[in-house]
């Protein structure tokens, strides 16, 4: 067992893990962050996306030991985030989920799309979302929701006339 420290959702956390433990397994099984879903467990489905030092990664193909000393954010830690708030609203209104299994990974990825592209086009959203698999919705609702959240955020910013910097 190896002891590692991560800043999980802003809280300094120390945990003893086997070297082969994935970041996803550590989050779910040791730290009770079950919002992070495990679908394929080999980097194919995107359900386990979390933020590592602010960037989305697939936590099933990152070793927990690789995250030693890093900042980890799961969906549980992003509930106050303004982009996640905008996305939650549009995902709800535009039927962007059915069973909800892929939703955590979709939201973490959608937030990154909206941070890197202001009010992205549907083509951009589809390309950027191509690594996230949803077996229920057919993606139309998800693309609609991300597009709408992008518009909402852009018009909020225009209203305020100032830039809102996400953390």
């Amino acid at each position, binding site marked *: 067992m*190896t002891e590692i420290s991560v800043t999980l959702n802003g809280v300094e956390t120390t945990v003893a893990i*086997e*070297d*082969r433990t*994935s970041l996803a*397994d550590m989050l779910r099984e040791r730290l009770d962050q079950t919002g992070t879903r495990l679908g*394929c*467990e*080999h*980097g194919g489905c*995107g359900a386990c*996306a979390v933020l*590592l030092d602010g*960037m*989305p*990664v*697939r936590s*099933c*193909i*990152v*070793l927990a*030991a*690789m995250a*030693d000393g890093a900042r980890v954010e799961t969906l549980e830690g992003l509930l106050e985030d303004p982009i996640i708030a905008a996305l939650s609203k549009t995902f709800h209104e535009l039927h962007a989920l059915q069973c909800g299994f892929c939703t955590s990974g979709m939201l973490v*990825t959608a937030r*990154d799309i909206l941070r890197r592209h202001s009010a992205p086009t549907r083509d951009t959203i*589809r*390309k*950027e979302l*191509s*690594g*996230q698999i949803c077996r229920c919705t057919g993606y139309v609702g998800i693309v609609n929701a991300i597009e709408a959240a992008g518009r909402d955020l852009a018009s909020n910013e225009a209203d305020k006339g100032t830039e809102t910097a996400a953390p």
Partner: protein
Amino acid sequence: MKPAPFAYHRAATLPEALAMLSEGDETAPVAGGQSLLVLLALRITGFDRLVDVTRLQELRACRETDDTVFLGAAVTHAEIEDGQVPDPSQGLMPRVAAGIGYRAIRNRGTLGGSLALSDPAADWPPCLMALDATLVIAGQTAERRVPVRDFHLGPYTTALEPGELILGAEIPRLPEGARWGCAKHARKSGAFADSIAIAACPAPDRARVVLGASESHPRQLAETSALLSRQPTADESALRTAAAADIAEADPDADAWRRRCHLATVLKAIREARR
């Protein structure tokens, strides 16, 4: 989907990493791990120990001269995509980087990892071959330089000797105004490619067209490159004939569909380079 047990060690210095790698083939270097950790989880491969090389300064370094850019092996695809490191290629490398896997993969996956794995469907081997890059490789006793065109020997097979580590790639600059084109065919964005073609023209009379995502390693298409160098405005039917002959040589086991994919990407890359 759990890998068999292994020990993980984050190397603090290059000599430490090289010493550990020289202790036997049960130790493997790991950088982003975006292929290796998948292969371990699927138990397609196994190692007793992984040595993490992502924090080594030598592999994170980027150096520029008037003629070349050196990119460290641990530079990520996303850093190249976002222009956080110098671009020797007038935009070709950021374009190629943006098409690798998905953003979450690009945030972790590295230039050196892609070259060392030598997956037939990888993007950097054909791209760096078209740019005529040279790899700088460290062993325990000496450093050596291997041109990318001599580095890839077959699927998952390279000129790396046991215990060696890629430090980075020295990439000649494409001059301002140089033309390039790239094309990739895959069933869906980010999926393993069925064909990749890169055309780089450092000068109007100098063209290198490289085919990737064959059954084996990337190859420069000799006839096509020669025709395009000799006759930059060669008509498409002549290029088509040259490319078809090159493709038959570069990917002899390809079926009719795969050959069509190759022909399409090669012509598309050349069209873009000539636009």
